[in-house]
């Protein structure tokens, strides 16, 4: 069928099957596509742009903090720089990255569907994201915002004269993009599974995205209305959070963190789903305790909604409320620990190979464990009072949000790159970049735990000279980290042209996405698959030759 359109110079190559990438080349065929895989690629490009933009601001912060004096920028500029870093990374990178790129691409294929339930709403999500992205870029170019990404009232509602409303609406747009993504995922997972694919046979990545979607649709509307209330307070002088009218700025913090704490689980849960896929594939073993790993995602989503006030222990909430939220914060550690223990148990007597995705998975387990356990430090009321608003908190949430999410994302990108692009990435360079990311990350953020513990507050552009050594280490680490992040972008792009052609299943992995071609055809499968096997039936799948591990089978 396709043979008539093959140009002469490609005729000797294996006949390129019609797939989602070569099915239409015009700009319109991309910008008006309703194919979930193409939308995933659109997201991939846009989140990458915002990631490097956010990273640019991160580098500005680290450069300013290289010396104790405020020499690179003034306090005002510094406030705007860390606000932009936070807003872009949180709303335009971390929240959409794994669901909108990998989830969008993989969920329909993993469940044997032709597309998400609402393909046009899926495209609308991307456009909303882009509108938000353009607005935040406009804010960035025309003066910025200086409240931090948290928009705390009354500073945001009364005092600052920076572009709060526009920045808030940018976050609002990104929020609605994520609501529609979550809604699409839930409906798709409920209604579009292939025959035989019961809930207990779903890949854990799908379970994780299902849990994420629940948080997206329950949490995001609350922050949306909070942003609207801040906007009307500024625009129409309504006084919802204004203490002069008897309003309560603490109410803002409650409403904000009601979403923004669960948002951390929006970021980490899909990455955890990726890690479950990687660990089981490269151990060539069924995941240990499938049901526990699957349901721990749901448990994290549910309990994660009940912990928000741990951001406000020193903000004046009642002692009893603080004690309950402290307990619940410890409690949410249980399902997270279930995941870590089960991954470790999956490794036990597994036939492990150290391919790049697996290196990232190991990195994830290490960094997430540190990030998670220091979260328990912060859940302890006494310690929290000591380290609130210090670099200890900064280090903690970067270990989870950057160490965790990015390790999962990069691991997943390497794992599924052959499926997405139809090409293999260069393994040697990939291993090098994994090493750079791991070393650079720890060098950047581990010193910040110490800095915070000895008393360096966050969000200041200057610091006493005795903190300089650790800050220099951190800045040096961030440069290594930047190289680690730039490398994959370069060799992924390189592999598009020069990478070896990927087979349908280069890893010998389980899962429906490996049963279709690389890259998949527009409707994913030539005929709807019927699933008659359990998830991760690795004892029935032969390992590819080059991945034969040294361990016992």
């Amino acid at each position, binding site marked *: 069928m396709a043979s008539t359109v093959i140009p002469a110079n490609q005729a000797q190559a294996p006949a390129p099957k019609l797939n989602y990438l070569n099915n*239409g080349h015009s700009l319109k065929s991309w910008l008006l596509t309703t*194919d979930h895989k193409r939308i995933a690629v659109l997201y991939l490009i846009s989140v990458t742009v915002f990631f490097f933009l956010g990273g640019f601001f991160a580098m500005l912060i680290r450069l300013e903090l290289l010396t104790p004096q405020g020499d690179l920028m003034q306090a005002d500029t510094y406030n705007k720089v860390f606000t932009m870093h936070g807003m872009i990374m949180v709303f335009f990178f971390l929240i959409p990255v794994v669901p909108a790129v990998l989830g969008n691409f993989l969920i329909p294929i993993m469940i044997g569907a032709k597309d998400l339930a609402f393909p046009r709403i899926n495209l609308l999500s991307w456009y909303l994201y882009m509108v938000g992205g353009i607005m935040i870029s406009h804010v960035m170019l025309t003066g910025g915002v200086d409240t931090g990404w948290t928009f705390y009232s009354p500073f945001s509602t009364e005092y600052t004269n920076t572009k709060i409303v526009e920045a808030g609406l940018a976050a609002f747009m990104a929020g609605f993009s994520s609501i529609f993504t979550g809604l699409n995922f839930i*409906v798709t997972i*409920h209604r579009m599974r292939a025959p035989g694919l019961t809930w207990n046979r779903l890949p854990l990545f799908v379970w994780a995205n299902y849990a994420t979607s629940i948080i997206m649709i329950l949490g995001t509307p609350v922050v949306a209305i909070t942003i609207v*209330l801040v906007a009307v307070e500024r625009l129409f002088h309504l*006084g*919802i959070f204004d203490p002069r009218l008897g309003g309560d700025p603490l109410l803002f913090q409650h409403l904000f963190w009601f979403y923004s704490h669960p948002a951390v689980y929006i970021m980490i849960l899909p990455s955890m789903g990726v890690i479950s896929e990687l660990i089981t594939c490269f151990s060539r073993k069924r995941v240990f305790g499938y049901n526990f790993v699957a349901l721990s995602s749901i448990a994290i989503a549910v309990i994660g909604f009940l912990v928000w006030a741990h951001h406000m222990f020193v903000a004046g909430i009642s002692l009893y409320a603080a004690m309950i939220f402290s307990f619940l914060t410890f409690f949410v550690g249980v399902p997270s620990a279930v995941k870590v223990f089960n991954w470790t148990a999956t490794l036990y007597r597994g036939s492990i190979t150290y391919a790049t995705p697996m290196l990232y998975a190991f990195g994830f387990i290490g960094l997430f464990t540190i990030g998670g356990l220091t979260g328990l430090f912060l859940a302890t009321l006494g310690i929290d009072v000591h380290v609130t608003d210090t670099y200890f908190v900064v280090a903690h949430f970067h270990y989870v949000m950057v160490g965790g999410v990015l390790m999962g994302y990069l691991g997943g990108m390497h794992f599924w790159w052959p499926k997405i692009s139809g090409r293999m990435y260069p393994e040697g360079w990939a291993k090098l970049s994994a090493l750079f990311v791991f070393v650079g990350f720890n060098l950047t953020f581990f010193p910040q735990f110490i800095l915070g513990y000895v008393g360096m507050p966050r969000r200041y552009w200057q610091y006493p000279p005795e903190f300089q050594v650790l800050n220099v280490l951190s800045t040096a680490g961030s440069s290594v980290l930047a190289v680690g992040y730039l490398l994959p972008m370069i060799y992924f792009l390189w592999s598009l042209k020069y990478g070896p052609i990927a087979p349908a299943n280069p890893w010998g992995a389980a899962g429906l996405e490996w049963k279709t071609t690389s890259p998949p055809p527009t409707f994913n499968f030539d005929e709807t698959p019927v699933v008659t096997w359990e998830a991760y039936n690795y004892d029935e799948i032969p390992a590819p030759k080059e991945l034969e591990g040294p361990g016992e089978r």
Partner: protein
Amino acid sequence: MSDSQATTSQATMEHEAHNPALLHHFADAQQQKNAASLGMWLFLVTEIMFFGGMFCAYLVYRLAHFNAFAAASQQLSIWMGATNTAVLIISSVTVVLAVKAAEAGKRKVLVGYLVVTVLLGMTFLVIKGFEYREKFEKHHVPGATFKFTDTFDDNGKQIPVNPKEAELFFSLYFAMTGMHALHMIIGCGLFSVLAVFAWKGHYSPGYFTPIENAGLYWHLVDIIWIYLFPLLYLISRHS
């Protein structure tokens, strides 16, 4: 779309074999209907959470400043509020009748009920507009010109009230009714489009999911008003 022309086989064949309203990625019409319906219910959940933020703020402030809220509430026009409540309840009935007509395949009846629903929605908005005008005239709009001196209850008893807290009440009043009115406007637009589509014969007894789903939206917006009315208008009016 240009890119899908190249993909011959499956999709096209399914399109030809089935209902023209069936999209290519669904196995059958029932799956498509179930997906649309679940999607709509989930969207309503997000709407409830969206308004939930404001209801939460209302609850907190009403408990903290009850007297001021009661006094400010007495200044709302209960008759306009009650009329609007009646208008919306009737409009919910016309929506149900519209869905019924769609189910029975009565095109003209369907269009009629959709148009009546839009008209009732607009009636609500006009009455709401008059209410807002009254607030401007009485300086009950929060901001620099806000004044609140009406601190006597219906029996002429003085209520000890901080006018600033009354301003908080009116802030919530405008935020909540304003957001509700915005949803009404969207609803009117939605039903106008549906009326045009229905006139052109897009819907049949086998396919009227958009009417059903828009109906769900309209009912939710009604229900929100049914909560707003007692919470805003009827504070301490039980004497």
